């Protein structure tokens, strides 16, 4: 009972965060709205029982991605034209398109009915089976992710190098 109420609460919160992202002017505030959405999603994952994913959500998304984002916002001068005029020329078409998109998606996705057989369980997301499966059956993707991360590091270094040259 309370779980359902909390679920509804956090769902509403994430949606509210999303809407605030569209509306707020200062990028810092937008970042904070996004953090709120992400935390609500983490709560939803926790309510679903997939605590692993919830933790990952907070650690990676909020802890790494959003921190990086906040750093960058703080470094830059945000008071330019994009601050004065929040919205681009595509405001009206964008809003209409987005609304129609949401409606069509809903019609497509939700009409399937409650076809899900089992109630959400915790079985697939238990940590031990998950780790075992990840490193045994899906080890290729694990290695590939490490490659991806190396690429990211290299790219970051390349960017730094250019900035260094420019400054020097």
């Amino acid at each position, binding site marked *: 009972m309370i779980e359902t109420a909390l679920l509804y609460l956090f769902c509403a919160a994430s949606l509210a965060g999303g809407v605030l992202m569209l509306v707020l002017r200062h990028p810092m505030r937008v970042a904070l709205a996004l953090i709120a959405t992400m935390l609500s999603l983490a709560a939803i994952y926790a309510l679903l029982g997939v605590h692993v994913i919830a933790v990952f959500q907070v650690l990676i998304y909020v802890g790494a991605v959003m921190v990086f984002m906040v750093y960058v916002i703080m470094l830059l001068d945000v008071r330019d034209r994009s601050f004065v005029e929040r919205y*681009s*020329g*595509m405001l009206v*078409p*964008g809003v209409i*398109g*987005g609304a*129609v*998109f949401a409606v*069509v*998606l809903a*019609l*497509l996705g939700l009409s399937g009915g409650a076809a899900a057989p089992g109630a959400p369980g915790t079985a697939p997301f238990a940590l031990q089976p998950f780790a075992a499966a990840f490193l045994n059956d899906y080890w290729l993707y694990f290695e590939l992710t490490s490659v991806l991360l190396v690429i990211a590091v290299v790219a970051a270094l390349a960017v730094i190098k250019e900035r260094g040259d420019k400054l020097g």
Partner: protein
Amino acid sequence: MGILTLIVVLPLAGFVVNGLLATRVAANPLGKGFVTTVACGLPIVSFALAVKCFVDLLAAGGTAIVETAFVWTQVAGSRFDIAFYFDRLTAVMVLIVTGVGSLIHVYSTGYMKEDASYGRYFAYLNLFLFFMLMLVLGRSLLVLFVGWEGVGLASYLLIGFWFEDADKAAAGKKAFITNRIGDAGFLLGMFLLYFAFGTLDMDVINAAFLATPAPAVSASVVGVLLFIGASGKSAQIPLHVWLPDAMAGPTPVSALIHAATMVTAGVYLVARMHGIYLHAPEASALIAGIGAATAFFAATIAVAQTDIKKVLAYSTLSQLGFMFVALGVGAYGVAIFHLYTHAFFKACLFLGAGSVIHALGGKQDIMHMGGLARRIPVTFVTFAIATAAIAGFPYMSGFFSKDEILWFAFASERGGSTALYAVMAVTALLTSFYMFRLLWLTFLGTSRMDHETEHHVHESPLSMTSVLAVLAVLSAVGGFLALPHFLEPVLPLAKARESLHALEKPLMYVAISVFALGLAGAWLFYRGNGALAARMAPSFAGLNKILFNKYYIDELYDRVLGRPLVWISERAFLGFGDRFLIDGTLNGLARLAHSGAGVLARVQTGNLQMYLWLVLIGSLACLAWGLRYV
């Protein structure tokens, strides 16, 4: 290769050889001697072959020699061959063409010696000879028509020989275009004949017309159509305008093409197709009428001309008119007889004029000549003989042929009348008058030349004077050959009305007196320094002006035909049809593509969010489709 084909093809070989090797483009590597040998030698060989054929023909008693060169095409049951046909009429024509042609080739070697385009000239002359021989030797109207068009082409090339001068080039164009107008009539006549008979062989068609049940096709219509073609080629009214302008070409060309051979092609055509005209009294009357009108009209103009070649050109028009009058009254053999004598004396006159022009270094205005008789005696004597022949000096060639024409114009059963005779007699008087006027003003009397030209005057080289001599002799004695009787098996003799037979001798005396009157008149007006003519000139100034300007016919054609056509071309076809419709459509399509592209290019704004929005719309469309169908 048969002998007839050889006669036709030899000049073509000359054209090809000289055309490829001797023109300025090819830098004439083989020299004038080679060109002369090829160009003059081949026509002489053709003439020799023609003589041989003629002898063979007489030996065979006059039956025609027929030779098929090759089959051109066979289409759905009808067969068109290139065949040659040699009977008495053809013999006369071929001998004239090759004989006089060869003489004029020899003359040209002297006349065109200094010209830079010596090789090209002879190439064209040989080409002309090839087409003319094809014309006279052809068995079917198709082969004749090929020759017809070909001589028109050769005429254009030779009239505009000095094409760097725009006026001369324009004269060439005028000749060709006027001929083409006549050819339209000719083609229609040919179509009718083919439709009626299924063949274009002239001997077959003639036989069909002469046979007792007359054929279904209207002889008058065909006759008129063929005559339209003939009047284009033989320069009768109203298609006569090109012949005086054709004097822009070299003088030997005028002699060959516009006196002796090409312009007589129309006369030959009508004579050959006499079967049609025997059944078409309306067409024959038309021919006689137009012939008489042209003869008189041209003679009046010739009286007032001052360019030596123009006088001779109008004289040619007039004499052609005589030939057509003969054809119109059914005296076909007589017309050919006059064609034959005319070839001699007119060629001699033109070549003599060429000799005068050569002597004076290029001048052609008779008002600034005079007193040349002593300076260039050979030219004078030959010119005088030829003038006497054309005017009708008794027993010279012109006398016989012209007298016969006048007789049949008066007395023929097929259209002879007093009115026709009167017109032709007056024309003969004018002929005598203007020819002797020409003789006096050019050769006799006091000299009106300027000093430098006078100093320059010299007799022409042997290549030119020898030819003049030969032609003068032929003009004098050529008439003794009774051609109409020789041609009788092919061209039936005209019949004179019985009641008028008694008048034959008196009319001959009239003809002689006409000649004498003309001579006397010319002597009176133009002897000495032309004092009498000069005194009388002011009282006839208006008439003189009209005659000198050829009755302003060219200006009339320009105003009535030329300008509206140019207007239609420029306004209707160029301005509206071409620029507005065609270019407009194309440009409009291009503009449409351009503006369409412009509209589509609005998508490329460089605005990233716009592109994303378009992706959104696209995926929306896919989802919507999935919603409906999946």
